[in-house]
């Protein structure tokens, strides 16, 4: 925020002095204690942040000493972005933060931690090759003359571990051997071991068992008693109501409401998360669904896919909705053979014998295609031409006499798809890495259109692409359905699914928690189903 001017404030809090913070002075006006009342622990005023689209807009938030303040919202509502701003991982575009009344401009996670704002990230950051103790104190190892003082380190580590109920754990053992739940606890223990004023927890219980979570809540209460403020981000409403004093609802990057947690019901929170300003699209209706093309039965894979069954029929677009982490992507990947299955079967059409899908090549042979979520990682050959990317899955069809490629037939196909999908490129020989995200996505979709399979799985096909490209993607999906193919679309944008789909399946905590048809769905119902798996604490 150094380079952006701070938004002047009009606060009625006995602070008549307009802020003129200038880092070059080395002190700030607020350092002299002009505030009459004891300052709040943390205040955020009018914070905004945008990447290509705004993710936080004019968001204000405050946290008292010894308070647990929960942040909830649907996918992409801006919760995690706000947390990242607070702990110095991202800089806000505008707005102001104050910590203990002083202007707070975190420039790095390290600096935020020195000022007392500590965050436990949603992703695990445990370094497997290092010991438990080293992971706990990685950026502040006790040392003398450059050497780590292991005795001191292990003494501190034992204390920190005992706090989270891992007192039996050997601090010198490698952290990589621990399960996901214990790794999460290590991260939390590392945060708790710092002298912090503000602790930010982003989905801390996602990987924890109930007793572990209970232990975490005890710790949070102890910190509360010490005057630490806790910002608690979670999907799990039962937890939030148990632990949080206040709940702030975010929607599309804006603060919608702040409630005392006793005064509000889950239904009301869900209504607020969804909002009413989006008109419900009228059902597209009247697309006759054909025969069953694909059946997935009791699919299990990893921790994310617990038990998933569904059917896809020819000529219909089925949406797969759900919160991030509910197992949507993992369901697609396991169905396609990209990740190993732990159980369950995939059947083609009405066949009684399940398909043997050990790797994507098996699924592709059966006529299934998948456009993955992560284009760069899983889809593109960035330095290679649009043509080479487009024909990757169908090279054999451009070959004669066992493997000799016919470059003209290949180029012709590539040009044909570039025209059909309005892929903007200088020529089909242009490296695909030079195209815009939308055009890259269209190339990947064309790769499967060329394959002409019966079933197509799309994972977030419109993420990060512009409006025109989105429209093309919608047309392609509808075109596929019109040809009688079965289409499954994962998307985090509910309005998109509701405008596009003939049926929406909602996943929650690794299971299909609801199925809705055009006449009966509302954003509220779908969001309710998406949260349903996280409502009762007695999971598993």
């Amino acid at each position: 925020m150094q380079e952006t001017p701070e938004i002047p404030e009009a606060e009625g809090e006995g602070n008549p002095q307009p802020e003129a913070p200038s880092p070059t002075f080395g002190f700030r006006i607020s350092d002299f204690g002009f505030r009459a009342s004891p300052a709040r622990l943390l205040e955020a005023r009018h914070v905004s942040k945008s990447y290509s689209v705004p993710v936080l807009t004019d968001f204000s938030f405050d946290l008292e000493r010894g308070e647990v303040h929960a942040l909830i919202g649907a996918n992409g509502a801006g919760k995690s972005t706000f947390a990242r701003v607070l702990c110095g991982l991202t800089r806000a575009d505008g707005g102001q933060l104050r910590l203990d009344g002083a202007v707070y401009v975190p420039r790095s996670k390290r600096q935020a931690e020195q000022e007392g704002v500590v965050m436990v990230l949603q992703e695990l950051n445990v370094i497997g090759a290092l010991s438990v103790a080293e992971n706990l104190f990685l950026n502040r190892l006790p040392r003398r003359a450059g050497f780590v003082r292991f005795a001191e380190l292990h003494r501190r580590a034992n204390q920190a571990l005992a706090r989270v109920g891992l007192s039996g754990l050997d601090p010198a053992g490698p952290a990589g051997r621990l399960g996901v739940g214990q790794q999460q606890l290590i991260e939390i223990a590392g945060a708790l071991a710092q002298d912090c004023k503000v602790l930010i927890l982003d989905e801390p219980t996602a990987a924890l068992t109930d007793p572990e979570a209970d232990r975490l809540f005890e710790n949070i209460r102890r910190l509360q008693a010490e005057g630490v403020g806790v910002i608690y981000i979670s999907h799990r409403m039962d937890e939030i109501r148990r632990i949080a004093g206040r709940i702030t609802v975010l929607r599309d990057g804006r603060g919608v409401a702040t409630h005392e947690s006793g005064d509000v019901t889950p239904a009301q929170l869900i209504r607020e998360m969804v909002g009413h300003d989006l008109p419900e699209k009228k059902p597209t209706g009247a697309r006759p669904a054909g025969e069953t093309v694909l059946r997935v039965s009791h699919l299990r894979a990893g921790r994310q896919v617990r038990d998933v069954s569904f059917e896809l029929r020819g000529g219909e677009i089925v949406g797969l909705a759900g919160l991030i982490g509910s197992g949507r992507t993992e369901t697609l990947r396991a169905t396609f053979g990209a990740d190993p299955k732990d159980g369950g079967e995939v059947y083609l059409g009405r066949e009684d014998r399940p398909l043997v899908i050990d790797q994507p090549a098996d699924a592709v042979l059966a006529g299934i295609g998948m456009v993955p979520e992560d284009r760069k990682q899983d889809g593109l050959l960035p330095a290679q031409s649009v043509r080479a990317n487009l024909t990757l899955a169908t090279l054999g069809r451009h070959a004669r006499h066992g493997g000799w490629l016919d470059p003209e037939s290949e180029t012709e196909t590539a040009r044909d798809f570039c025209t059909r999908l309005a892929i903007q490129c200088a020529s089909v020989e242009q490296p695909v890495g030079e195209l815009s995200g939308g055009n890259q996505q269209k190339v990947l979709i064309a790769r499967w259109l060329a394959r002409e399979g019966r079933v197509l799985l799309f994972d977030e096909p419109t993420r990060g692409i512009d409006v025109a490209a989105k429209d093309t993607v919608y047309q392609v999906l509808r075109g596929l359905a019109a040809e009688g193919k079965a289409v499954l679309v994962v998307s985090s944008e509910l309005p998109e699914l509701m405008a596009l789909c003939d049926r929406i399946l909602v996943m929650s905590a690794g299971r299909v928690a609801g199925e809705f048809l055009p006449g009966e769905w509302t954003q509220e119902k779908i969001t309710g189903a998406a949260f349903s798996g996280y409502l009762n604490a007695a999971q598993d």
Partner: protein
Amino acid sequence: MTTKRYGQYGAMVVIWVGLLLFFGALSTNFLTARTLDTLANRVPTLAVVSAGMTLVLIIGGIDLSVGSVLGLCGAILGLAMVNWHWPLWAGALLCLGIGAVCGAVNGWVSVRLCVPSFIVTLGMLEIARGLAYLTTQSQTKYIGAPVEGLSRPVFLGLSTAFFIACAVIVAAQVVLSRTVFGRHLIAIGANEQAVRLAGINPRPPKIAVFALVGLLTGLGAVFYTSRLGSSDPNAGVGLELSAIAAVVIGGTSLMGGRGSVLSSFFGVLIIATLEAGLAQVGATEPVKRVTTGLVIVVAVVLDAWRHRMTATPLTFLQRLFQRSPPK
């Protein structure tokens, strides 16, 4: 093949001819039939091994065992022709077979058991050299005329081995750029995950490439033995480094996904000319090594530049040979 490639070949030909002229100017004896003869005789072994090495580097792997495998194959060739009185063709086939088996083992272990090829082939480097000593009791075997025919000049002072090597280069380049197999190799090197998710099992082509390098190394062993007229269990020590150097000078990326067999061939010519030229002007062995090392580093730095920036000495040369790209 894109026109960009012609530009690259052009640049490498210019560098090669430049080297020839440079050494020609330094030493009046350099541009004579005898030197060129030596040159043409040195090239075939390194050329076929480099062709294979190019393919391995393109899929993002590496094969450090080629020198030792060449030694083993040569040792067995000597055994077959001297002790068992096999004819050349049968011995050569056995050579290719043993090379292919060594390569396939490399490939199978690295792909199926998920061990980096660097490690697997490092192990094979020791194993194959050890086997070469074991099978020959560390003795050099004189074979003589039956095997030397391949290295005798047949046309324009060039040997049969040289023409076979050229044919192999052309064939490998065509396979790489004109077949489904070749295109899969480039794609695997560029993004193996994407290839897998496009419904192509990347394992068989990867194993095949390692087997192919082994096979070509076996062929290289036949050429090498033929040039010496005897089988030497110490043959090919350090060959892996020369081959990697030639391939890298040819602009193939060590990260995979980009490369050309033809360019590697020019890399071979450049390295061989450099060595022959330095010997001709009377450079000592240490000076030769320092110079060769410098050339490798400079070539790779230039190549890295070429891929990052628009104007470099090399791209300037390329532009001279580049036509306007077709729409």
